[in-house]
């Protein structure tokens, strides 16, 4: 067994929180820059340029790229030969507490009914998988509410099939309009169960932008959905244009013979995600 200390996890998580708020991953920056050349609306191009300029200011002036520094979501792949000297959840929450305090990030987590703020952006949302090996991989994706609120889950009838899936995804993006800060990334989870489809959709958002699903038919579905979404005309910030989404990522999982769960998780253009391997 390899021992990993709670303290080390806390330190790494703290760094992930801070770095993800200030510096956007290269693949997202490149997708935004490429979109400037493709966008047909002059106002849309201006918006995209402002988004890219904002990223520069965030980095150089040490200001979070978006004031909504999100609820902290983690996917942890825990090697089965790893032993932690304490609780993984506690270690992550402490990292979030320190990162959001020392990184001057907004504390956006509250009681669901009283709306009283917890004051330190905890608790984090943590998804854990046990995998082979002696490493711990922690992927963090802070999620803002503007795009999260526009996400949807529907239990389709199996007879609605792939056409039903396409219709639901496009309808969700259309209804979202300018609210989720387009250009967006669309994560789609098809199959599994009620909650599995939602987790698949969220995980799909962590893929590199434009990376295709290894299954050719699903990759074809991704391309078709992206094309249809960009024909909606919503455009950057909903002001009208040809760049509504930068990518559509679809993940699938077998499901019950009587169900067809489909979850659509929408991600704003500040698609923050960072990974660390311990």
């Amino acid at each position: 067994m390899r021992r990993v200390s709670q303290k080390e996890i806390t330190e790494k998580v703290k760094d992930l929180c801070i770095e993800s708020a200030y510096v956007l991953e290269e693949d997202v920056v490149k997708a935004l820059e490429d979109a400037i050349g493709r966008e047909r609306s002059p106002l849309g191009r201006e918006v995209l340029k402002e988004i890219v300029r904002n990223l520069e200011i965030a980095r150089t002036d040490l200001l979070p790229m978006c004031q909504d520094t999100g609820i902290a979501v983690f996917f942890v792949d825990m090697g089965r030969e790893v032993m932690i000297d304490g609780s993984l959840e506690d270690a992550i929450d402490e990292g979030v507490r320190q990162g959001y305090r020392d990184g001057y990030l907004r504390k956006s987590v509250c009681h669901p009914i009283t709306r009283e703020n917890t004051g330190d952006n905890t608790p984090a949302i943590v998804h854990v998988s046990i995998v082979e090996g002696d490493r711990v991989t922690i992927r963090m994706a802070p999620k803002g509410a503007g795009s999260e609120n526009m996400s949807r889950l529907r239990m389709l009838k199996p007879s609605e099939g792939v056409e039903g899936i396409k219709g639901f995804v496009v309808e969700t993006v259309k209804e979202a309009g300018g609210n989720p800060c387009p250009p967006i990334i669309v994560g789609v989870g098809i199959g599994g169960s009620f909650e599995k489809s939602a987790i698949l959709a969220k995980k799909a958002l962590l893929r590199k932008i434009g990376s295709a699903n290894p299954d050719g038919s699903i990759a074809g579905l991704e391309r078709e959905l992206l094309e249809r979404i960009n024909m909606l005309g919503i455009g950057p910030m909903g002001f009208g244009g040809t760049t509504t989404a930068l990518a559509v990522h679809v993940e699938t999982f077998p499901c019950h013979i009587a169900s067809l769960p489909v979850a659509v998780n929408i991600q704003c253009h500040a698609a923050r995600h960072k990974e660390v391997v311990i």
Partner: protein
Amino acid sequence: MKGPVRITPPLSDRDVEVLRAGDRVLITGVLYTARDQAHRRLYELIERGEELPFDIKGQIIYYVGPTPPRPGRIIGSAGPTTSGRMDIYTPKLLEMGLKATIGKGARSRAVIEAMKRYRAVYMACVGGTAALIAKTIKKVDMVCYEDLGTEAIRRLEVEDFPAIVVNDIYGGDLFVQGVERYRKVS
């Protein structure tokens, strides 16, 4: 695209009459911040017939919850939040003389009708450009509800704050017009 229109609150009827959906605007002067919880409290004051903590006539409310400032700075990042969550409170505030709101995303039918009736506009800024917008904020004063943290009402003094008119007083709507122009499906 025509150049930006410069405005300075408090706004008169005349100031908003010249604005059209799609116009780019640069604001210099005072903005009041308020979002979910602050609106709830303002609304409770109105229901009890009490006075608001600031004179709302001719003013602009900016829907924002900034990040905390670093030491030596006045504010952190400060981009717009989704305006639709404030829709249920907005018509009453417009009736009381509020002249403009700033956020992101579309407004409800009721808010759009109230803007026509009370001669007010809705503007959006580019969501997620919170660092860029923060640079236009020159002074920050706490007005009230400090216990709400990021959701407190603050008085911002801004210089060349960039926004785009979405809804004008004539029924013009940038979201509807812009999308129609580039839509390729029914």
